[in-house]
Structure formats: C-alpha cells, structure tokens
C-alpha cells in the first residue's frame, strides 16, 4: 500500500455463485464482454492492481483440532467468486466502481472492504506494548 500518496486500497469481493445459472448464452456472452471491459479499463487507469476468480471448490480449516471441512460453496449467495484489488482516492470512488459490476443486474453482490493499514489487533497490541514501555520507563 502506498504510504506516500493520498490513495487508499480496497478489496471488491464478488459474492454469490448462483446468479449466472439462469442466463442464456447471449446474456452470458454480454456479461463476459462487459466484465472484461470493466476490468481492463480499471487496470489501464491504474485503479485496479489485479483480480482473480476463485474456484468453486474449497476447504474450511477451523478449531483447535484444525479440522478440515469442505467449503459450503455449492449454490451459495455468499460464496466469494472473485476479487479486485483497487487503489483509488476514497471509499466513494471504490463504491462507484463497484456499482458498475455487470453481474449486479443478475443478482451478484459486491462487497467493498477497505484494506487496513495495520491489523487492528496488532494495533491494540502495539498500543499496549507502547503503554507498558512508557509505564516502565516513567
């Protein structure tokens, strides 16, 4: 992330892997063209640094036992299908960009998430450490 410029980074997370099911070949072809143009345009403007689609399969690792389970991705409105990494002026700009997603027309949902400078937990730890240090040397 740029420390010196006034830009901020955002992740666009594309949610839902069922919106494309009922589409006709003609509709799918249109979304492909539109999405490509959108992605290419953003990259050309330097606003998008990259993006990827994610495969539908996946695993979820959780718990103390570190159990591995199959991801609940079949026919899900929440499953993340892909992402764009944006670097733009502010959240409003990221939102305006997100509104142009060609999948929205058919039920896809776009989540706009600011990329955090520093992990908030880390920040708390650092603050606490700094405080402790201050106390110790006071």
């Amino acid at each position, binding site marked *: *992330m740029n420390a010196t410029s006034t830009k901020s*980074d955002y*992740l666009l*997370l594309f*949610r839902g892997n069922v919106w494309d099911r009922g589409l006709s070949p003609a509709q799918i072809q249109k979304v492909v063209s539109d999405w490509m143009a959108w992605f290419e345009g953003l990259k050309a403007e330097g606003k998008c640094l990259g993006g*990827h*689609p*994610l*495969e539908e*399969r*996946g*695993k*979820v*690792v*959780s*718990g*103390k036992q*570190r159990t*591995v389970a199959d*991801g609940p991705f079949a026919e899900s409105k*929440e499953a*993340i299908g892909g*992402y764009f*990494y944006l670097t733009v002026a502010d*959240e409003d700009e990221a*939102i305006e960009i*997100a*509104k*142009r*997603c060609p999948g*929205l*027309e058919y*039920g*896809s*949902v*776009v*989540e*706009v*998430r*600011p*990329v*955090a400078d*520093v*992990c*908030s*937990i*880390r920040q*708390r*730890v650092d603050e*606490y*450490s700094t405080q402790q240090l201050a106390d110790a040397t006071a």
Partner: protein
Amino acid sequence: MLLFRGPHWDQGLSTDELQRTMDNIMAWFEGLNERGKIKGAQPLSAQGRTISGTNGRFVVDGPFTETKEAVGGYLVLQADSFEDAVEVARTNPALRYGVSVEVRPILAECPIFARHPEIVRRAGERAASVRDPWATMAA
C-alpha cells in the same frame, strides 16, 4: 487464496496471551514470506459497504455477512497443490481462538493456451475456413 474469518477472536484473551499469539502470527507470516510463499496479504477493515441491485442501486453499510463470518483478511498463497495450501492453512496460530480459514484455489489462466500457443493458432485458422455460412451472410 486464504480468507480469514472471525475478526473478533481476540475478545476474552488476556493481554499477555494476546501478545504471545500476535508474535506467533507474525512469525507464521514471516516464515511463509521468507520461503517466498506469500504473493500478497492484507488485513481488511471491519467497515465497508455491500452493493447490490441493478447498477448497484442498493448500498448498505457493513460487510456482507455477520461479524463472526465476515472476512477479516486475506492471503494469496503460492503453494504446490491445493492440499499443500490446506496444510499451510492448518498451521495458522489463530485457529485455536476461533478464526476459520477458507482455502480457495485461484483460477489460473487457461493452461491449454499458455502451453501450446502454436497448436491453438493452427486450429483457429482451420476453424475459420470451415465457418458457418450464415456468419458470412450476416455481413
């Protein structure tokens, strides 16, 4: 891609435990980084907006899912196989505190065409000569 969920896992921990865990997590990241396995990673702010509807007319505050399911960060991992990626995920120190890690393969570029560009080009030419009549008609 590894997606980390459950950003408020730190609640209820003593600050000592927190410090230790954070150190472990940092070490985990650094270890992976040194082995060249991290292509990119960021934590995500708990805020954000969710956009839906034609032309994105519905803009709602907050991430898409409830807090405990919300994505708190991501890591793009370079791994030899999907199974390896899952194994890496299993070593994350925050798992014992309720963080779950979703492992999703990133769809690679069409391997076919990357591997055999000259073959594909020839096939493309042949296909053009056997084109459907109406396609030329429509001109």
